[in-house]
């Protein structure tokens, strides 16, 4: 039986990557800064985003959000209370967002009328790292309740992030959170990354985060 080898040399996620490239061009042309927020379930992505949207809108910025979950539109309803346009993406079992899902949920939105678009990914520290969504900034979030070694356990995500956000610092002491260790571990996996230490509840670190967003535009 004769067989032959056919060289393919092609990216497995080629379709996603091509779609993401198209989205990135669209976002750049529209002048909207797009961020992809990734963390475990329970880190507080939604609370952090609620606070961010509220503060941005109070300052006259135009911000919108897409939020991914397997089921329910609970997060979209929470975020919409900020006054920002919000759309829920239900993945029905898929553990990450893909570029095609983003593309489908942008219909009817005037991107040029936005300053910021936040994409809250499905709570998962593994799979979202493989899927480019066309974002300019990928943000990895980590709460003080999760353990300082999370970046070492999930290096693929932390290494691909452009910024890191530590959430819930208002309860850091109660959790015996070792700040130096956490910052060291993040830096070990992603040297030089910008790190924000925040509390959506007290507003700690939010000003610095908003300045970073403004500078990213």
């Amino acid at each position: 039986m004769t067989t032959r080898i056919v060289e393919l040399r092609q990216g497995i996620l080629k379709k996603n990557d091509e779609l993401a490239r198209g989205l990135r061009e669209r976002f750049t042309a529209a002048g909207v800064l797009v961020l992809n927020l990734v963390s475990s379930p329970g880190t507080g992505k939604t609370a952090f985003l609620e606070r961010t949207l509220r503060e941005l809108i109070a300052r006259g910025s135009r911000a919108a959000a897409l939020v991914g979950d397997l089921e329910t539109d609970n997060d979209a309803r929470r975020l919409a209370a900020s006054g920002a346009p919000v759309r829920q993406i239900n993945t029905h079992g898929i553990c990450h967002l893909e570029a095609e899902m983003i593309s489908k949920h942008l219909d009817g939105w005037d991107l040029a009328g936005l300053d910021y678009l936040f994409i809250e990914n499905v709570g998962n520290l593994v799979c979202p790292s493989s899927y480019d969504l066309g974002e300019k900034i990928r943000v990895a979030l980590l709460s003080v309740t999760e353990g300082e070694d999370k970046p070492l356990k999930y290096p693929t995500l932390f290494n691909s992030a452009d910024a890191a956000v530590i959430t819930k610092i208002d309860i850091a002491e109660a959790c015996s959170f070792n700040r130096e260790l956490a910052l060291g571990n993040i830096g070990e996996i992603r040297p030089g990354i910008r790190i924000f230490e925040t509390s959506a509840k007290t507003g700690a670190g939010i000003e610095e985060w908003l300045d970073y967003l403004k500078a990213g535009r």
Partner: protein
Amino acid sequence: MHELSIVASIVDSVTESIAAWPGARVVEVRLRVGALAAVVEDSLQFCFGIATEGTALDGARLVVKTLPVVMYCGHCAAEVQLAGVQSFRCPRCGEPAGDLRHGRELEIEAIEIEDAPDRAEAAAEVME
């Protein structure tokens, strides 16, 4: 567990690639996977068996070549290979290394195919 999505993409790409050889069967699929690609080989193998059932890839072997992480170290002015993914420091000088050059690959390198029996005979006749 996005390995099933990845395997589904592999089946689609390979099926498209062999459209030029009707009836051909895929014997082997060779992948290049970087150490930072966030996929687990066992999981890929398991999903591959399921996702290929009833396709031209049914029964094919999946061969995964894992590639190391390579960073550029500004201090040494050289590309350096990391021993693992727990510390992004240059193994030569110990300085933090942030410039990733390789390690996220997730590619189909090549496939091995077997022509449809009648076509193989036809090819053999032509050869004669």
